[in-house]
Structure formats: C-alpha cells, structure tokens
C-alpha cells in the first residue's frame, strides 16, 4: 500500500490540485493532508471604474474586468483569498477586525467547500482514500465542511483503519506566538491523544498523524523570534518549537510511522527509536507540493519512503 502525505497547503489552489493528482501520479492508495489547509491572507481587489486595483507580493497593479478572473487565480495560487470589494468596504474592514474575521471564515469555508467538490469530481471513479486532519491554523468551521464531503474523510480525533494499519490524527498544536485556532498546552494535547492511543491494537503497525512535530528533532526547527515576532539573526538562528507531548507519545508507544507538518522549514526525516518520523515541509507559496511517499508492506511494515517536491 502506498501512502502520499502532504501538509500545510495554506490555501494554495495549485497545491490542492496537485495533492489530488498525486494519487495517479505516484500510484498512491491513500492521500493524507496533514492540516493547515486554509490561507493566511486575503487580498482585496478594489473596484475602480471599469477595473480593479490590487497589490500582490508588494506590487500594485490595475486590471480590467476581463482580466480579473486570471488575477484571482494568481492570488489563489499563492494561497491567498482574492475578494472583490469597493474602497468603502475596504475602509470598513480596516476599522473592524471582527468583520475581517467573519469574511476570512466565509472565504475559507467557501474555498474548502470548492476543494471538497473538486476532490469529488476528480476522484469519483477512484478507490483512493483521502484524509484531512485540519491543523492549528484551520478554523473549526471547516471541520463540518470536510465531514460533509463525499470523497474526503475527516480524520481529526479518530482511529482509522487504512488497509490493516491503524492511523490516529490530530491537528492540535502546542502554543504558538500567534495564538491560533487549535492550540493547547502540552498536558491537554496528551489528554487529546490518550483515547486514540488506547484504540490502537498494534503499535508496530500504527501511524501517528499529528500536525506538530516531536520536540527536539530536526523536524521542529524554526527561526528564533524575538518578543515582537521578528526573526533573530537574519532568520538563521533556529530553535526547537515542536511538541513535547507528541515526542513523549512517540518515545513511549513507538509507532511504526509518525507524520508531521506545522514547521515549514523543518523538512526532514528522523528516527525516534523504532519510529520513522517525517515532516515533508511546505513550499506552498511557490506552488510546489512538498510531500512524502511511504510504501507499506504487510510483512516489513515500512518498505520504503521518499520525500518529493511535486
């Protein structure tokens, strides 16, 4: 059985399409999206006469109505949400963070819904199973959208049997400086994991699909920040920011495989005792789908694995 694992797509339309196409491209049986599938930014396309004004990647531009759809695709490709609005609406949003939040939630749900439909269209004749476990950057509202999707299974908080291997998933992370949507102290993360861990019958065939990487590995090194969220030493100084709860769980239970994301710079593979732990990293902004392919064998467990830049 071949598992394709990617994570931290952050709203990138290109990456989601590649994720779905990966099943055929790599001949995968199972697709797992490790969380953080929603975008971080919203780009206003401001109506101006017969066109729109926008700024993308720091570059201001004006486009005609006939070009606006193409520009919206460019924005989506980067993982941002393009929203057409008037300058009055922009001013209104600027004054009211709550309205911005509401609009974000609306855009996120709308996009995830469209992605779920895309999965249904593309994979309607396929036997490939697709799993998504939302990550700490994903708002709670998207869970329902995923749960209602015909071809995608919501993995959060469940033990799921995939071809004789038991997978448990959680997108919750240890606290970050950004106070995101699914964060909890380490003790609480342990409590969240506990019921799922008890469901596993055979750890030698278990897969942990936990969004934060284990603490103190090469998978959890992120640029050190000061109290104002400014990278120290030009972004070169790295610190371990993974979860100690995840690390303890791996140390204690020694599953066959442990899949992680969260730290985009933490691309790598490491062994923690008997466990192979993987963080494929993320380069969603470049439209590149960083992922891992793991081939599982009923006798050997993990037959082989590979990181790819699709």
């Amino acid at each position, binding site marked *: 059985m071949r598992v394709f694992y990617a994570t931290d797509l952050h709203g990138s339309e290109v990456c989601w399409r590649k994720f779905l196409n990966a099943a055929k491209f790599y001949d995968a049986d199972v697709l797992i999206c490790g969380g953080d599938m929603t975008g971080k930014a919203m780009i206003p396309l401001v109506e101006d006469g017969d066109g729109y004004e926008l700024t993308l990647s720091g570059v201001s531009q004006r486009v005609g109505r006939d070009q606006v759809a193409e520009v919206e695709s460019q924005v989506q490709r980067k993982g941002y949400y393009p929203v057409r609005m008037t300058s009055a609406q922009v001013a209104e949003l600027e004054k009211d963070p709550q309205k911005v939040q509401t609009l974000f939630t609306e855009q996120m749900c709308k996009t995830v819904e469209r992605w779920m439909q895309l999965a249904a269209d593309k994979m309607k004749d396929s036997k490939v199973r697709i799993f998504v476990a939302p990550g700490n950057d994903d708002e709670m509202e998207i869970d329902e959208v995923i749960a209602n999707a015909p071809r995608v299974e919501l993995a959060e908080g469940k033990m799921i049997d995939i071809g004789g291997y038991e997978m448990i998933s959680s997108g919750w992370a240890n606290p970050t400086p950004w106070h995101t949507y699914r964060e909890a102290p380490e003790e609480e993360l342990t409590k969240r994991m506990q019921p799922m861990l008890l469901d596993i019958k055979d750890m030698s065939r278990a897969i942990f699909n936990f969004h934060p990487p284990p603490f103190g590995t090469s998978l959890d090194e992120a640029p050190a920040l000061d109290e104002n969220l400014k990278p120290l030493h030009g972004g070169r100084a790295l610190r371990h920011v993974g979860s100690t709860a995840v690390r303890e769980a791996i140390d204690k239970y020694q599953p066959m495989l442990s899949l992680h994301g969260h730290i985009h710079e933490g691309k790598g593979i490491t062994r923690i005792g008997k466990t192979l732990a993987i963080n494929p990293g993320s380069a969603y902004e470049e439209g590149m789908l960083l992922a891992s392919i793991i081939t599982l064998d009923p006798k050997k467990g993990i037959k082989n694995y590979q990181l790819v830049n*699709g």
Partner: protein
Amino acid sequence: MATTTTTETPRPTLFLRNATGLVKAWSTFDAFLYAFWSVNLVTLGLYGMSFVYAIPDGQLLLAVLLTGVLVTFLVLTYAQLVSAMPRAGGDYAWQSRILGGGVGFVLAITGWWFTLWLWTPIYANILVVQFFAPLAYTVGWTGVATFFGSKTGVFVSCLIVLAFVSWVITLGMEGYAKIQRFCFWLGMGGLVVMLGILLFSTHQAFIDAFNREAGSLFGATGNAYQATLAASTKGGGPTGVGFGAFGITSTFLLLPFLAFYLLWPVWGATLYGEVRGAKEYRKVFNAMFWGLWVTVALVAVIILLIVKTIGWDFYYAANASYWNSIFVAGAPAPPVGIWPYPVMLAGWLVNSHLFQALLIVVMGLWFFGWAGTLFLSSTRVIFAAAFDRVLPEWAANISAKRRVPYGSLVLMIIPSLVVSAIWAYQPSFQGIFLWATGVIAITFLGTVIAGAIMPWRRKDIFENSPIARFKVAGIPVITITGVVSAIFILFMIAEWSFNAVYGTSFSLNASSPIYFAVTYLVAIAIYVVARVVRKRQGIDLARIHREIPVE
C-alpha cells in the same frame, strides 16, 4: 483576531489573520552581518591580497571596485532566486529544481562537501599567519611560533580549526550568531584602531617602527626595512612598485585574486519569511549588496592607508619576499620571517608589545566570528541529500541528547583530518588542493545558469514570483544578471586553471585537475549508485523533483 497591513498606499492591500509563521520583517542589519562576515576583509581579504604582488602593474584599487561591480551581478542573481524560491534556499535546491536532481547533487556535493575538506588547512594557515604566529612573536614565545611553522604545528592548527568548527555546530546557529555579533563589534573596534594608527602615523614613523620591532621581536639587525626590499628583489619580486601603476589587462588579472574573498557575499543566501513581496527581494539584495560594498569601501580605505603609511612598494616587497621564500627555490628569507600581517605592522607603530598583542587578539575575532561557519553549509547540504535518499539515512542523524549532527560531522571531519595530515606532512601535495576556490565557483556557476534559464525552465515559478516584473527590453533581469555572472565566473575559472601567475594553475599542479576530476566522478558515481540501489528498493530518485500536473 485579524490584522491589516499596508504597503505604499494608505489603503490596506492585504488582510492577515492569526496564523503560524507570520513573522515581522527580519532585520536587514542581521542579514548584512552574515554577508559581511562571508567577504571577510581581514581573514580572507588581507590574506588574498597578499598575493597581488605577482601582477605589479595591475591597479589594485580599481580591481577591487571592478570586482565589486561584477559581484553585484551575482548578488542580484542570488537575491532574485531567494525571492522566487525562498523555501528552497541554497544552491542544491535551486539547481535540483531547475537543472535536475543529478546536476544539483553533483555540483552541490563537490562544492559544499568535498571541497570544504580542503578549506580546513587553508583556514588553519590563516589562523596561524594572522593569529598564532604574530601573537607568539609579540609576546616573546618564539618557540610556539616556530612550532606552528613545523609540520606537526600545521597539523595541530588544522585540528584546532576542526575542533572549533565542530564546537560551533554543536552550539547551534543561534548561539554562534551571538558570538558573531560580539566578534563583529569588537573586531570592528580593532579595525578602527588599526586604521586610526595608520592614518595618524607617517611613513618615516613606520620605517622606524618596522626596524625597531624587526630587531626586538625577530632579532633582525641593521635596516630591516631596506633588507626586506632587497630580499624581494633578490627573490624575483617586484621592485619600486608605484600605486599609480596601471595596465588594463593586468588590472583585470587581479580579479581572480580578489575573488578569494569578494566572491562570497552570497554564501548564506537562504533567508526566511512568509507572505513576502518585492520588498523582501530588496531586503535580501540590500543585505548582500551592502555586505559586499561596505567591505569594498573598507578595503579601499585600507589600501590608501597602506599607500600613505606603509608604502606601496614595501607592501608588495614584504609579501613577495615572504611568499617567495616559501615557494621560490633560492629566494632569501626576509628579516621578518613571518607573513607581513598588516594588523601586526600597524600595531608596531605603537611602541608597546602589550598593545600590539591586544590588537592581534582583538583582530583575531575576525577569524573566530567567521571560521565557525566552515561546515554549517556542508551539514545542510548533506542533510538535504540524505532526505532525498541519495545519501544513506544515517548521514542526517542527530544525537538524541545533544542534538549533534554526528552523521554529517563524520562525513566532514574524517576526510578533513586526512586532507589536513596530507597538507601538513606532504607539502608537495598542497598545490593540488589550491584550486578549491574554483570548485565552489563552479557550484555558483551552476546556480547562476539555473537563475538565467529559470524564466523558461520553471516558467510557473518565475511568473508567479515578485521578480517576474523585472525585465529590460523584454528580457528577464535574472537572465541578464545570470549571464553576466556566468561570464565573470568562467573568466576566473579559466584564469585560475590556465594562468601560471596564480598558484592554482594546472600547469604548476599537474595533478590538480586529476584530483578535482576524480571528485566530480565520485559525486557522479554516488548519484548513479544511489539511483540503482534505490530503484531496487522501489524508490525512483528521478521523481523527487518531477512536478505533479496541476489540472
């Protein structure tokens, strides 16, 4: 929960929500510091420029400025690559994605792995001539200075460099960055003092000071200043070189000497950031550009002060007499038997051995703030190759307790020990290794070619990057800067290889091209073997960089 941000216009152009990784802009100064350290004007600069006496009619100051202009094209190319492919970060990833996995592996592994073994004795030699030897003579420990001139001393200096570099890697980049900052400020303080001494002293004062300390520290008798000039002449060195000497071709021929230090502002091009834009490109560019040009400006000041106080003919003669006494058979030894370290010479203008020793120690921080990064890039490249399954998994192993990357360290240190032993105990082999700079230049060449063709080869990435709008007459700027950089690098590689004026020339070291050709063949062999072995394991290495269709 959500926040807004603006660019130039007062109206918000982007709404951000709370999400991991949304950091504030990093400090340009911090990034500048890394670029500035990489083109280290003291350790690499003064060392590299001590060979320019070989082309006496070249105009050094003009050559420094010309190199600065040409390296700026390299900086532009790298800054654009960082902007277009920020997460990729580094020669290996850029080349792999644009030129292909095999090319990326071979060029990166030869440049950042195999070749940095050879840099260990070069670093060690710089440590000896700029720190141990002048310091030992200054405090009267001539035995220590003599020891570091012996074969075992050379080997011990290599061990010291390896120990220091390993310690830095175990310390981690954050810890070392703090040390670098400390070294920068104190080292800059030392440089200001040195420049101040040269500025406020006369040429006659220097002659007197030189004669005094040559006698006091080195036992020289009579007029050591004149004896140094005479030793240079007898050894075939230049005589009576004037600062105004100017030959166009000769000036261009100085460029490969200057590349020894000015080529490296892009050494650490990997930077971090998210939701970036064109502004981010300017930041990356500014950091590397100013790292280069502040160095160029300081070098210009140093050159002019050497002309004023030490004397240009003496500067050339002192270097010529020292190097010729080592490399030219029958050349007489100069009265001051160690490398004419400009810091030491400037310190002699103050008649206090304590002060002189302190100045050497403080200026030694330019070495320790810089040398620690010798293997940092190497370990990253080895990690990346191991994650790509080209190298075995253990190469990326990190110890559980102290988080030491022992796999990659072993791959760096053991060969470096062998190279250091050969360098120390079989000096005839040294010439073979001198072309090491050329290998890194070839790695850079691969990257600038990758940059130049990116708009066509990875159109998807280019057109969606902030650099897509940078065009001149319809040609992408990255193509123009990449081509100019490639021509510049090719010129230097050709000169290093075939012009006997450089110690690296293949005509002087017939085994050198064989050695380096073997390293490329070994890299190719590793890649081919990895492809075959992994294929048997059911892993297709060719698919690592193959793009998944979007539609």
